[in-house]
């Protein structure tokens, strides 16, 4: 059996990795809610943006916050450009053709980042160390871990505030629910979808920059997190952003328990297993509430 401090440590570790999963899942969820497309290029878009930060840091020797801002700016432009140049052009799109479009972009970006930045593993460092630790209430956590948890939490709050309390956020939610009704209220659905791609790409890029220091930066940086983020979104329910966040944390917790009790090596199977299981038992996800009309 585990004692109390071990349990707390386990939970904190899970929140740490779960944050990354949650952010990746959120990035996919934001696009999904706007356009009903799971964006499989999400990972590569994020990786590419991280490479931009890396270049600004190393080649130009800029301070971290400059690299961070430049990278997010790039991510935003990449997101809206993808929507404007590819997604919007698709005539009479089906979900399948849109998925193929995102996979197409994924391959292009993967090839491109290998070609432009090289395929070797690079060390990507944040100003927060992975090896220095602090102890909070008996739990030891790395600076990077703490920064990850806090940054993700702040970002989630920002997204929530934006959607719930700004005019544009309200327009986005309205357009997602009934685009015809949104249009006759003067809301451009094109603009809403475009903005969603931009925001989603930023969220993905932040996740990638928080994740890259843990392993190393290379074109396949986000393969694993993307699978996990996707699993988190399936688990929580693609239609519910809070659900996706919980899905991310729960997935990380299940993974850690699996690693503890069964095998560390095969931890990654958990995500796959969860995707299959959820699709089998409750395809809409755990947290997606399906509102019912009172008749």
């Amino acid at each position: 059996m585990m004692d109390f401090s071990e349990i707390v440590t386990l939970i904190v570790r899970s929140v740490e990795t779960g944050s990354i999963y949650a952010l990746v899942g959120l990035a996919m969820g934001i696009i999904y809610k706007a356009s009903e497309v799971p964006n499989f290029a999400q990972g590569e878009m994020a990786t590419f943006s991280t490479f931009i930060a890396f270049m600004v840091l190393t080649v130009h020797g800029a301070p971290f916050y400059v690299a961070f801002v430049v990278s997010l700016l790039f991510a935003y432009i990449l997101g809206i450009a993808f929507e404007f140049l590819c997604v919007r052009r698709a005539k009479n799109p089906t979900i399948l053709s849109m998925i193929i479009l995102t996979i197409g972009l994924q391959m292009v970006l993967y090839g491109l980042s290998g070609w432009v930045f090289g395929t070797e593993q690079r060390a990507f460092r944040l100003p927060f160390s992975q090896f220095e630790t602090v102890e909070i209430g008996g739990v030891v956590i790395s600076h990077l871990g703490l920064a990850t948890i806090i940054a993700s939490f702040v970002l989630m709050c920002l997204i929530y505030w934006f959607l719930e309390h700004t005019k544009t956020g309200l327009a986005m939610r309205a357009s997602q629910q009934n685009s015809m009704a949104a249009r006759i209220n003067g809301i451009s659905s094109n603009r809403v979808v475009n903005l969603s791609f931009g925001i989603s790409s930023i969220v993905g890029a932040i996740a990638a920059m928080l994740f890259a220091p843990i392993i190393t930066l290379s074109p396949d940086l986000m393969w694993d997190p993307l699978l996990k983020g996707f699993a988190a979104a399936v688990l929580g329910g693609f239609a519910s952003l809070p659900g996706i966040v919980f899905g991310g944390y729960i997935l990380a917790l299940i993974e850690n328990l699996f690693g503890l009790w069964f095998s560390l090596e095969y931890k990654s199977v958990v995500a796959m297993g969860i995707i299959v299981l959820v699709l089998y038992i409750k395809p809409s996800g755990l947290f997606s509430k399906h509102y019912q009309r009172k008749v």
Partner: protein
Amino acid sequence: MTLLNVQNIETYYDRVYALRGVSMEIQEGGITAILGNNGAGKTTILNSIVALIDDQPEKGLIEFDGKTITNMSTEKIIRMGIGYVPEGRQVFNELTVLENIKTGAYTRKGRSEIEADIDKMFEYFPVLKERTKQQAGTLSGGEQQMLAIARALMSRPRLLMLDEPSLGLSPLLVKEVFEIIRQIHQDGTTILLVEQNAKKALEIADFGYILENGRFVASGTAGELKANDDVKEFYLGVKSESSVKGYQRYRRKRRWR
């Protein structure tokens, strides 16, 4: 002054020829009614005006406030000052009542004015005030209709178009909704009203058009239409005395073609 001028528009849904040359002029300050049976093309007229049907109308010209709006996007047309209460209400089901009303003000600036207008909506529709936090999808049909009207009014339109606002409402509610439409008109908004309930519509309208199979077959002031034998028989349900039914109907139907 002519606020909306529709000239000879033709609208297709693929090969379905839905509007076969429709023309009308709507004067500022009036209430105009379009009457017609199911499938006549009433909704299609309104959707054509605000450009909701892709690449349509195929032919014709639409002017609002003297400016051509054919080929403009829905969002732009709405911004010019048209409010639209669509068929079937189309409220945002998972937004609250208050949020629904706020989306109506999307095109506007000026926080305090918007707040004042929200209060005004609650004066028009007191039922909504008690339900500001309720999800719109859980409202009754009548409440949803009120909400759809309130939402459309929030953009402060010069022209308010309503598509069958009385559909599915109890007689008492129908009366209430029409009373509110009359009130909105008195407060200075031009009204374009689409209805199957001809009796009610002609009570408040000052001008009306009769639509059949994508064409206007009659038009006139409300008084003229109410006195028209065909309108009486086919829309107001008043039987003419010497009814040799089938033959009579056939002859009457022919008359306005």
